[in-house]
């Protein structure tokens, strides 16, 4: 801790610990979040939602609501139908109702909206809308969704006679079966990753301001992907794209919850068009939990084959995926299961195979969210859980089993049996560092002593490899939009600069780290570099921030655009110093004449000359700026070793996370303070998912996690003081060697915690227990009743 204090005044011209530029406004209550936007004449919008999971809409009577004080408009699905706006595309080439017309398909679905003078009046009027429903049998149990007698949810899709969304397969089934048939040991486990919710502290919302004279729409919205949203609004609403300005101001956490377009955003646009006034919509917490993008909901059968000496040979899995009522998964089009294909983990296998079926149920849509790196959370949980189950069967130490099977450093770039090309990695040092920090051998000794006394202590390990930074445009797009990112850099005459990004921070600190990336390349202090983002009118096109893609994609763009500026600066410097370009050396911040370091010009002097009087070299235009669109050649593959220590109270079955050691390798480290913060946040998510969080439903499809009293999120009392470490294995294809870090800890921590709990329960003969490991579920496990949560 003393180290933290000592480092506080570091002001690096480039990489290093640097205090954040965005903090000044956020600490003073001067942040500008969507709900802080106040426009003259602004109205407020509230949404009427379905109380039923599955019901036909017989009639809607809005007359009383329309007559309610302050009400300016009441809009139903029938109104939207007339405008051709009742349905909109999802990010997975499905459609979703903007307002229900025929029937409702999940509890909380949007049925009508009211626009009124203030929030209270809008809410009052909702209660006066009279909807007659004809309740239908809901599909709640995902295992029964494909039964022949299951009610068909998507009757809106022509010819649809079942609840099937897609089948997906990866790896070589025949080869995998062959390896399994010859293996000494096969371990099989049914593993559930329950439905959870990102629940950012700021809920979703928007302020729409349509100017009918200019035909121009301004939309402040809680979006992680302002440019992609703008394009989709142009397609959905028919407003020309150049007349739409999407502004993502300060965002109060995203975690994937703010990637999709929600009906509410469209409602605010329609509301503004209909009333001719700005319209604000902010959902409340229950609306956020019951209707916006959930995460996970995979039922997985995992099988692992190995030799009796502990050489892992193959992994195969069968997955049933619950996608809710509409397939709203935000993933690259060719990856309907996201990047689940990396379920082969960090191990050198002979074969692997996965078969997946996705189904519709009467639950909210979503699936890819909560810092999941496009389903890598599920993949890593699967492999790290089944590897531990194998260790249990072989009576091997789980650390030893992993060390024995790691992909070796000389095997990189490594192509997995499911076709992913891991760019770089050196796993053993990362694992050894985590074990050393934890004092692994001493912990095992302590555990043995405690077990002898009947105390329950567990040590859990997880080792993960992530695939982040989507992605190469040759095979990754969202609704046809390539996953590249633009970046523009201008150096002003006085040597101050502005860099414009297509990605958007939701708390990750882009205004600081991106200034540092440019500073490292140009030698301009970060304080002199403004980072602009979140406003489509002022930034280049790109696909936004999610899936840990900002540093891998946009960070590369920022480094390369700065190098372009530096290349131009070099031409100008050669004229200023009257030497050839070949005779110049770049020493961060200035060009020097080779062999004569006294003769040099700084980047600031060059900037002034670029904009100033006097001739420039032939062919060199005035100004000092550049732009780029970066298309990554591959994903980046960060890795990490996590060790968790838990104690379980045998009397109450309460799990206490005593220690958590996280060693992460995200390649080149731009700002270690921010990296540590990203890791801490993800570890806390992991405690939530492993021990507390779950969105569950009763048999009628009522959501039982509809408030923060029912959906439990960790507070400061449930988490330990995190212990972090790092190794550095740069990405060979990334311009600065950096890999993503935003989601590593969310991906890696749940299996470490569950493995620790299962390890603590070893005396009861437990090999697996599903999340969330609440006291009642642990209590059941201790009594041999470790039933799945769904």
């Amino acid at each position: 801790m003393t180290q933290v204090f000592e480092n506080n005044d570091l002001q690096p011209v480039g990489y290093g610990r640097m205090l954040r530029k965005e903090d000044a406004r956020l600490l003073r209550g001067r942040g500008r979040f969507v709900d802080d936007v106040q426009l003259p004449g602004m109205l407020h919008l509230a949404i009427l939602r379905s109380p039923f999971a599955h019901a036909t809409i017989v009639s809607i009577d809005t007359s009383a609501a329309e007559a309610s004080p302050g009400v300016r408009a009441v809009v139903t699905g029938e109104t939207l139908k007339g405008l051709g706006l009742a349905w909109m595309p999802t990010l997975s080439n499905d459609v979703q109702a903007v307002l229900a017309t025929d029937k409702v398909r999940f509890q909380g679905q949007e049925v009508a909206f009211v626009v009124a003078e203030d929030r209270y009046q809008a809410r009052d009027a909702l209660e006066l809308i009279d909807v007659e429903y004809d309740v239908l049998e809901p599909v709640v149990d995902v295992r029964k969704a494909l039964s022949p007698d299951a009610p068909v949810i998507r009757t809106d899709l022509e010819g649809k006679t079942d609840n099937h969304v897609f089948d997906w397969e990866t790896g070589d089934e025949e080869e995998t079966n062959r390896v399994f048939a010859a293996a000494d040991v096969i371990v099989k486990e049914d593993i559930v990753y329950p439905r959870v919710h990102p629940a950012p502290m700021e809920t979703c919302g928007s302020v729409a301001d349509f100017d009918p004279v200019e035909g121009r729409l301004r939309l402040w919205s809680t979006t992680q992907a302002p440019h992609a949203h703008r394009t989709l609004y142009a397609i959905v609403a028919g407003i020309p794209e150049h007349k739409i300005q999407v502004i993502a101001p300060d965002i109060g956490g995203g975690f994937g919850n703010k990637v999709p377009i929600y009906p509410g955003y469209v409602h605010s646009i329609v509301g503004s068009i209909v009333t001719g006034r700005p319209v604000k919509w902010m959902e409340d917490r229950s609306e956020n939990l019951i209707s916006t993008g959930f995460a996970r909901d995979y039922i997985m059968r995992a099988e692992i084959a190995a030799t009796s000496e502990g050489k892992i040979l193959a992994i195969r899995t069968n997955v049933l995926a619950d996608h809710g009522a509409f397939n709203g998964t935000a993933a690259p089009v060719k990856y309907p299961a996201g990047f689940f294909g990396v379920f082969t983990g960090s191990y050198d296998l002979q074969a692997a195979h996965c078969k997946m079926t996705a189904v519709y149920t009467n639950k909210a849509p979503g699936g890819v969210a909560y810092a999941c790196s496009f389903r890598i959370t599920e993949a890593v949980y699967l492999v790290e859980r089944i590897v531990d189950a194998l260790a249990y069967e072989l009576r091997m130490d789980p650390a030893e089993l992993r060390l024995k099977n790691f992909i070796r450093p000389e095997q990189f770039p490594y192509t997995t049996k499911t076709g992913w090309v891991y760019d770089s990695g050196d796993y053993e040092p990362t694992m050894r560092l985590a074990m050393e920090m934890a004092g692994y051998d001493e912990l095992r000794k302590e555990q043995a002593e405690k077990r002898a006394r009947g105390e329950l202590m567990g040590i859990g390990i997880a080792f993960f490899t992530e695939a982040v930074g989507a992605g190469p445009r040759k095979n990754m797009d969202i609704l046809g939009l390539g996953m590249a990112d633009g970046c523009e850099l201008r150096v002003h005459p006085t040597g101050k600069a502005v860099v414009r990004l297509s990605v958007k921070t939701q708390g990750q600190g882009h205004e600081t780290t991106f200034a540092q990336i440019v500073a490292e390349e140009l030698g301009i202090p970060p304080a002199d570099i403004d980072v602009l983002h979140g406003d489509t009118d002022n930034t280049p096109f790109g696909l936004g921030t999610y899936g840990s893609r900002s540093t891998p994609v946009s960070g590369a763009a920022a480094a390369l655009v700065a190098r372009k500026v530096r290349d131009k600066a070099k031409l100008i410097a050669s004229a200023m110093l009257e030497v050839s370009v070949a005779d110049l050396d770049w020493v961060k911040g200035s060009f020097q004449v080779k062999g004569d370091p006294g003769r040099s010009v700084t980047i600031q002097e060059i900037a002034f000359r670029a904009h100033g009087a006097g001739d420039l070299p032939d062919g060199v235009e005035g100004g000092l700026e550049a732009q780029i669109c970066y298309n990554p050649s591959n994903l980046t593959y960060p890795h990490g070793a996590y060790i968790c220590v838990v104690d379980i109270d045998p009397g109450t079955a309460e799990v206490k996370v005593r220690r958590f050691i996280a060693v992460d390798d995200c390649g080149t480290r731009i700002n270690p303070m921010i990296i540590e913060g990203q890791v801490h946040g993800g570890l806390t998510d992991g405690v939530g998912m492993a021990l507390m969080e779950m969105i569950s439903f009763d048999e009628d499809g009522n959501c039982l996690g509809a408030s923060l009293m029912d959906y439990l999120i960790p507070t400061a009392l449930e988490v330990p003081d995190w212990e972090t470490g790092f190794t550095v294995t740069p990405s060979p294809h990334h311009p600065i060697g950096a890999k993503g870090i935003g989601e590593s800890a969310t991906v890696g921590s749940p299996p470490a915690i569950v493995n620790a709990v299962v390890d603590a329960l070893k005396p009861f003969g437990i090999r697996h227990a599903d999340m969330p490991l609440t006291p009642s579920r642990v209590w059941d496990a201790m009594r041999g009743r470790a039933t799945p949560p769904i």
Partner: protein
Amino acid sequence: MQVTMTVNGTEHTREIEGRMLLVHFLRDVLGLTGTHWGCDTSNCGVCVVWLDGEPVKSCTVLAAMAGGHEVRTVEGLAEGAELDPIQEGFRQCHGLQCGFCTPGMLMTCRALLDRNPDPTEGEIREAISGQICRCTGYSSIVRSVQWTAAHEAAAAATKEEAVAP
């Protein structure tokens, strides 16, 4: 109904509906948007302000109940350009990321330090346990409070030295 309250040292009188929540009064009526709203159920604490020096969740206090009382919000922490030490502590120790829970956290932590200038880690965690942060994992918030406590203690010692004969 008419309500009069003092917010950050300034008295305000407004005509409001009896059902208006304090958080909406501060944000929508006075335009003090530093105080946030997050859950409706008193679980998240992003709306914490002081009512007569005590932290309260302003989403479950009626504006009318604050009539005749003193309210302090995050906007009332800094004095001009100078941050309150708790704000500086959060800055130094990366105690915030998205900044949405921060105003409430700052008000609670300031109140803790006013009451207990040298809290243990456990006391800090207990004090902020009615509030949720989705970004930081809390360790850095704990460190921010410890940083502030250490710096305020050092500043007090310097002051004492200066006045000593």
